[in-house]
């Protein structure tokens, strides 16, 4: 705010209102009650700090701001939920760890944030709006007397625009209200009433610039790249290193990743036992478990646990090919889905353990290779558990204990 300017005589500028000055909050409150009771509408008080009870003295009705904030918060809440529902459940359904496409718990953090954000923004801008801020200029800025309103004096302004306002009567009313002085405030005819031109241009440029990212996004959605993109950070886009599966002119074969040198084996990867590591005996898939796999309850339990982690998403808890992934993929009905095998099929019951081991290790159809993920011994443990499942599906009476047999009679 600029320093107080010279005040023109009242005669030239129209009257804005009458300003009364008080030296304590108590006298101000009493005066406010007087003005309130006289039925004025366009008037206000100015104090250097919040004065308790001034709202009642002025007869100010409770603000509607809380309701606006509630509305803002509910809007944010509905918008967040609605948009996530549309994006996750309708526009781009994408399966994430077997959960429903539109999963409310996952939406809560964003819903919470947007509710808070919208409430807060409504509070700030609602407060500014209800207070008619920002005001670039106000006639009171020109009053020398008014400068103590941020220090230690208290003021009351009645505007000339008020229907009950009468320069003489109102002046007398204020003078008898305990004021230590009353001053006529002229309208501010000098200061520009609108936003300064420079600021207008700045706002215009900022607004225009703010649309650029959106325009670029819209362009990117609709266009196909035909040229190299613009590299903003070249040394991040082109790093001084060799990446796997890339060309490298240093070597004669121009491959960045080097093949294993013939006749060598990496440390700890000898794996010469064909039965254990490849499920083969004499070049044919084995029909027996290798000696390294103990056939006992502990191994089955280990297999059950690993099966639960790696196999159930597709093959289901009982190996019937009804896992969560299959259920969801089938529900999408895209036509390209190859359903996982039912492990209890006769084909798989008769398949040798070596071949099953090979399937787990290297994958088959659209089942990926699990060799890199599951240690060898665990793969065998899983097969042992699969055998247990298969047996449980066609259990013979001889498999039951005496007690269980008795309960069936």
């Amino acid at each position, binding site marked *: 705010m600029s320093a107080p300017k010279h005040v023109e005589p009242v005669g030239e500028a129209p009257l804005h209102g009458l300003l009364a000055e008080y030296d304590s909050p108590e006298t101000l409150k009493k005066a406010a009650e007087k003005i309130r009771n006289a039925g004025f509408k366009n008037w206000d008080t100015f104090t250097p700090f919040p004065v308790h009870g001034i709202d009642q003295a002025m007869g100010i009705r409770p603000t509607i701001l809380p309701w606006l904030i509630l509305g803002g918060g509910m809007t944010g809440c509905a918008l967040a939920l609605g948009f996530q529902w549309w994006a996750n459940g309708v526009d781009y359904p994408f399966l994430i760890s077997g959960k429903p496409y539109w999963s409310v*718990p996952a939406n809560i953090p964003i819903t919470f944030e947007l509710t808070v954000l919208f409430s807060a923004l409504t509070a700030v801008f609602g407060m500014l709006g209800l207070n008619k801020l920002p005001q670039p200029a106000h006639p009171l800025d020109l009053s020398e007397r008014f400068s103590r309103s941020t220090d230690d004096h208290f003021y009351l302004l009645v505007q000339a625009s008020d229907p009950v306002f009468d320069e003489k009567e109102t002046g007398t009313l204020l003078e008898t209200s305990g004021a230590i002085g009353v001053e006529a405030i002229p309208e501010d005819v000098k200061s520009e009433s609108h936003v300064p031109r420079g600021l207008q241009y700045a706002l215009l440029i900022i607004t225009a610039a703010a649309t650029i990212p959106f325009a670029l996004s819209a362009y990117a959605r609709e266009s196909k790249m035909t040229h190299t993109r613009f590299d903003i950070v070249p040394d991040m886009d082109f790093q001084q290193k060799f990446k796997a599966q890339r060309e490298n002119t240093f070597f004669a074969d121009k491959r960045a990743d080097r093949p294993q040198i013939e006749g060598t084996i990496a440390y700890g990867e000898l794996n010469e036992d064909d039965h254990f590591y490849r499920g083969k005996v004499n070049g044919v898939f084995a029909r027996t478990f290798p000696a390294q796999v103990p056939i006992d309850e502990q191994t089955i339990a280990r297999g059950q646990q690993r099966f639960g982690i790696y196999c159930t998403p597709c093959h289901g808890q009982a190996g019937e090919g009804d896992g969560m992934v299959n259920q969801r993929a089938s529900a999408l009905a895209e036509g390209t889905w190859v359903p996982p095998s039912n492990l209890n099929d006769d084909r798989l019951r008769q398949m040798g353990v070596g071949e099953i081991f090979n399937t787990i290790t290297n994958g088959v159809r659209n089942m990926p290779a699990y060799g890199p993920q599951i240690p060898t011994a665990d793969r065998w443990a899983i097969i042992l558990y699969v055998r247990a499942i298969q047996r449980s599906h066609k259990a013979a009476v001889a498999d039951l204990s005496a007690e269980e047999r008795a309960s069936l009679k």
Partner: protein
Amino acid sequence: MRRAKLNMAHDNHVQLDDNIQIGSEATDFGKKAFGIGGVALVLALVLGGGPFGREFLIAYLVAFMYSLAIGLGLLWFVTIQHLTNAKWSVVVRRVAEIIAANMSVLAVLSLFLIVPALMGNSTLYAWVDPAKVAADRVLKHKAGYLNIPFFAIRCVVYFGFWWLLSRHFLKRSVEQDTSGKAEINTKLQTLAAPSMIAFALTLTFATIDFVMSLDPGFFSTIFGVYYFGGAVACAYSFLALSLMWLQGKGRLLNSVNREHYHDLGKMMFAFGVVFWSYIAFSQFMLIWYGDVPEETHWFHDRFQGDWKIVSGALLACHFVIPFFGLLSRYVKRNRKTLAFWAFWILVIEYVDLYWLVMPTFGEDVIPSVLSLLVHLLAWVGVGGLFIGAAASRTKGLNLIPTKDPRLAASLAFENP
């Protein structure tokens, strides 16, 4: 506010125009509550199968954690008022100090839970039984923490600390009523800082020991905070209702006004509705998306059968309904509406604790009429003894710290 501050600097001694002692009205009420509580507890023991009876122990655990929540919540309230040098709360602080000072009673009542555990009775806690520990990999793994001697030591630390702290706060505060020494505030503020850290740790581990270890396979690091949220909400609700009861008896009429109730209401809203929900959801969401069987089974138990309805009811009655109910300023400033929501929070907190404990034992929502009766009796029993002791403790004490230097500011307190 400004004037009150200026006055305070010159004059520590405010002329109180109020009835600030309750006398025999409270002690008579205390005796009655004590009697009813005692009878209810005996009946709960008889109907619930004695001190080692499964029905009794489960019901007693819920009831005990409930009264403990009020006590601990108020102890936390007193601690944080000193820690932050709070002015608004001085007129309500003494009542909180008096109720919180009954940690001794709660310590004695906790023996019903601790002694059977120490004797190796595994009705509640599987980890006290060596045979069960030997048979379970998880229990074996956790035996370094969940074992009887260490549990006994922890219980002594928990209740010892809470007892000493609450007693000290009340004692020093009462001492100020006669001596008027302002430095008592400074000393209590210094004490409050480390006490707050110790309080957080003891509350967290006590919740883990008494409630979370019912299901030793489950673990959630936020579990203590969850109990804390409910406890603080209960404490503010109970404090508001206690003050209304005192005012109904003609006490504190000129000291405690709607400004103070408004603040209590804000805290009820903050802790009982928002904080509790925030913590409850944080706990749920991490387990939900992590989807690890060791953790999910705990919620799975609570989303089965009728428990699903209770879980939904908690969401509605601990969050959605009171959120809109307590949101408005007018509701918090009106004594009747505030009393309604205080009751609401106290009821729903019981449901919350019931929901924490019961599904772990594989129980239905209402296993039997007898079980419900034992729960009710245990709740009345522990609550009656706790309230009775609190009411008796008012004897000869001022209900306001009359010479606290911040009293003038508290009396003149106005919400902006």
